[in-house]
């Protein structure tokens, strides 16, 4: 049996008919069509499905969609404003932090939530914050650098 829910995603409201056991990542991808949020493992081990809920990074594969009604969900698609990339997106592009790109949305969303709460992080803090987001391509060096550069760019603003 499906149940009706209302989700607030990237500033828009969506009335959806879903099954109660569906996870947020599946609802975002399959019901709303926001496929930017990636499903790497479906078990909370890789970080690829990270989205921001009320300012905190969460793993969308570990959260039931019915439980996040009334919360503000931000996905990778909601990050760029009026066609302008978020400073993290910009830094990931500029500093070569992207290769295959499959971990990228999760990496950026984890970093975004992290910088909201810690705008002046040390490198060790960045590493710790991103330690739940796996990437096989980059060896993380340029990802860590991009987050550091983005935090500096934001401080300058």
């Amino acid at each position, binding site marked *: 049996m499906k149940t009706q829910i209302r989700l607030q995603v990237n500033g828009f409201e969506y009335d959806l008919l879903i*099954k109660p056991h569906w996870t947020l990542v599946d609802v975002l*991808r399959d019901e709303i069509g*926001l*496929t*930017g*949020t*990636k*499903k*790497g*493992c*479906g*078990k909370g*081990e*890789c970080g*690829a499905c990270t989205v921001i809920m009320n300012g905190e990074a969460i793993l969308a594969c570990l959260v039931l969609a019915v439980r996040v009604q009334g919360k503000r969900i931000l*996905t*990778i*698609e909601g*990050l*760029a404003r009026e066609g302008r*990339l978020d400073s993290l*997106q*910009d830094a*990931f*592009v*500029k*500093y*070569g932090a*992207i*290769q*295959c*790109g*499959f*971990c*990228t*949305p999760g990496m*950026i969303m984890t970093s975004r939530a992290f910088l909201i709460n810690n705008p002046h992080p040390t490198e060790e803090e*960045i*590493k*710790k914050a*991103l*330690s*739940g*987001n*796996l*990437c*096989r*391509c*980059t*060896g*993380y*060096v*340029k*990802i*860590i650098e991009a987050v550091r550069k983005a935090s500096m760019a934001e401080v300058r603003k």
Partner: protein
Amino acid sequence: MKRDYVNIGKRLPRVDAVVKATGEAKYAGDLSLPGMLHGKMLRSPYPHARIRHIDTSQAKRLSGVRAVVTGKDTIGFKAGGISAQGDEPYLALDKVRFIGDAVAAVAALDEQSAEEALDLIRVEYEELPAVVDPLSAMNEDAPLIHDHAPKNISFKTDLSYGDVDQALRGCDYAREDRFETTPIRHGFLEPHAALAVWDHSGRVSFWGSKQSPYFTYRNLAKALNIPLSRVRVIQPYIGGGFGGKNEMFNVDFCAALLARKTGKPVRIVVSQEEVLFAYRQRHPTVIDLKTGFKKDGTILALEAHIIADGGAYLSIGALSLYLMCAFFCMPYRLPNMRAKGYRVYTNTQPSCAMRGHGVPQSRFAAEVQLDLAAKEMGLDPVDLRLKNALKPGEETPNGFKITSCGLQESIVAAKSIIAGWRKQQPKDDGRKKRGIGIGCYGYVSGPRMAGHNTAGAVIKVHEDGGISLTTGSTDVGQGSDTVLSQIAAEVLGVRLEDIRYGMVDSDITPLDPGTFGSRVTFVTGNAVRIAAEDARGQLAEVAANALEANPGDIMFKDRKVYVVGSPDRSMPFSKLVKIAQYSGTGKTILGRGYWAPEGLEVPNFETGRGNMSAAYSFGTQVAEVEVDSETGFTKVTRMAMVHDCGQPLNEMLMEGQLEGSAIGGVGHTLMEEIVRKEGQTMNPSFLDYRMPSTLDACPLEILHTDTYDEMGPFGAKETGEGIQVAVVPAIVNGIHDAMGVAFKRIPITPVMVLDALKKKS
């Protein structure tokens, strides 16, 4: 000497960076079509069993289920890597050969119904004795996994050059060791995914996460028994491959088969857990290695015996085994060599290519043994390498012709890095033992394979000055779309952002072998250069007419064309394209290029002779480690690599390749191992199978040797694959330096370190 270019060599962002940063980039699992069904695979719970009967009737009756297929619904085609001898059906025919072997597939309205249907398929198995250890599998009385392969040997190779026995007798020093490597994961985050749909003309369109889409293009036709012209393979963005997405897999076949059966689009996205227990791995090996030296350190002879665990099927394993053996010939001079290899079937996951393809295993053994020998002979391990390092113009005993080669330069540079680090290195504080290790490598830039070997490229110009570039090559994350675009931009005198790169569509793009063996930049790069030169030549004629000059005097630069020597006689590139297309009867400017290196030999995998690559890359890796003698935990504190990739086409992308490869090497050396019990994978999750995270990343210093490869596009060679070969032994040798113990098995776990320390005291 490196040369100066406008686009080449610059730190330019990837052409696909923005769409990947915004989540717009579509991967196979992101795609959907109206009316699409969802597929799931049923897999064997037994390592070895005969299938007596499969009853799908109950599953078919489940509401929402549209089709169930088994091996009986196929023509029985068996895939087999590069060998004519196929052995792997996409759906089991008579037997299952490992836990995870595909038995049936279901298409249903939603994933849940498909999943439920799997539970309703009744498979009657007759369990057979299984063999999961390659050494036991070679026993006369071992259960036979494939009827055609006595002693379960799926492939063997015997490379012999010079007179090893006599040379070993003449050596001042020789040593013999047994090395062991364990199975590891490719570790891409995007699980295998495929979407297929048929139309009424009998054509199948296919989108899949394939790093070499033309493998799938051919095998779909063969396995579905349809003409090649009825297959269209379209490449979406690919979420990493590392060798593990080369071949067409059961998920690809079943999506197409179920789509044909139902008349609907069918998508199958496997779970990461399935990737981890039912697909590919790096070959685990047991390597017995003997090397003999003169007392000054000159290597005189090497004898190797390799047993590689191939798992249940051949895959691309013949090549893997050949590479393991052949790369003992590189990167050092080796007058006498013998390498015998056996690739053995076992009832486990099939092994295939993975970053460095076969070479990481054998060079781990050889480079660690070099350090052991150096120590006992009282020689400096760096000097020992320098003494034996190959130079430009040399030929290895199996016929690899060394052209550009910066190996000696890289070892010299590494030596001064090590000296600098030694000075800065804090002293051992009792608990923390610190050490520095080194390893070297040589690697191919596109291996010559049997069969199709040519890359093609097409350039189309637009009247706004934009360029469409298509090739048959696939960017799985390595950045080839970008460097190929840079090459086109350089030749046509435009900017990188003027290039629109089109991904593979087998209906439109040129045929291509695929993304493996570090071939794309080198081989396709030359095809793109030629295609761009072709388009430039056509445009130069138009420009010559308009500017009243000779075509040979037309220069292309800064989005302009001008007459050499008189820059005032010029026009914008876009205007030139318009003139070409609009004047008189008009012209269609299409640049065409194709290229494969001339004069290469397809190596004989059994005897190993042949120069398989037009260029070889080289490098030296240095690793500094810190071993905690209380916890046994090893940390790589920093690494440096001195690297001969010819002329780097894009420094930033090249660094990214090297960094990813190096940190992957840390995982291979210290963390990663697929653990199995009686054929059952015990750690099919990223939580239990630990790959490096940000916490395992370390600072990396990247230096280049001053080389330029005359054959490579704008001087470039392989980058980022070969280095993993050297990272592994550099870390192992660093641990040897730190604690005086040379480990001969990877990964080196804390338990192994503590055991070794206990033994030592």
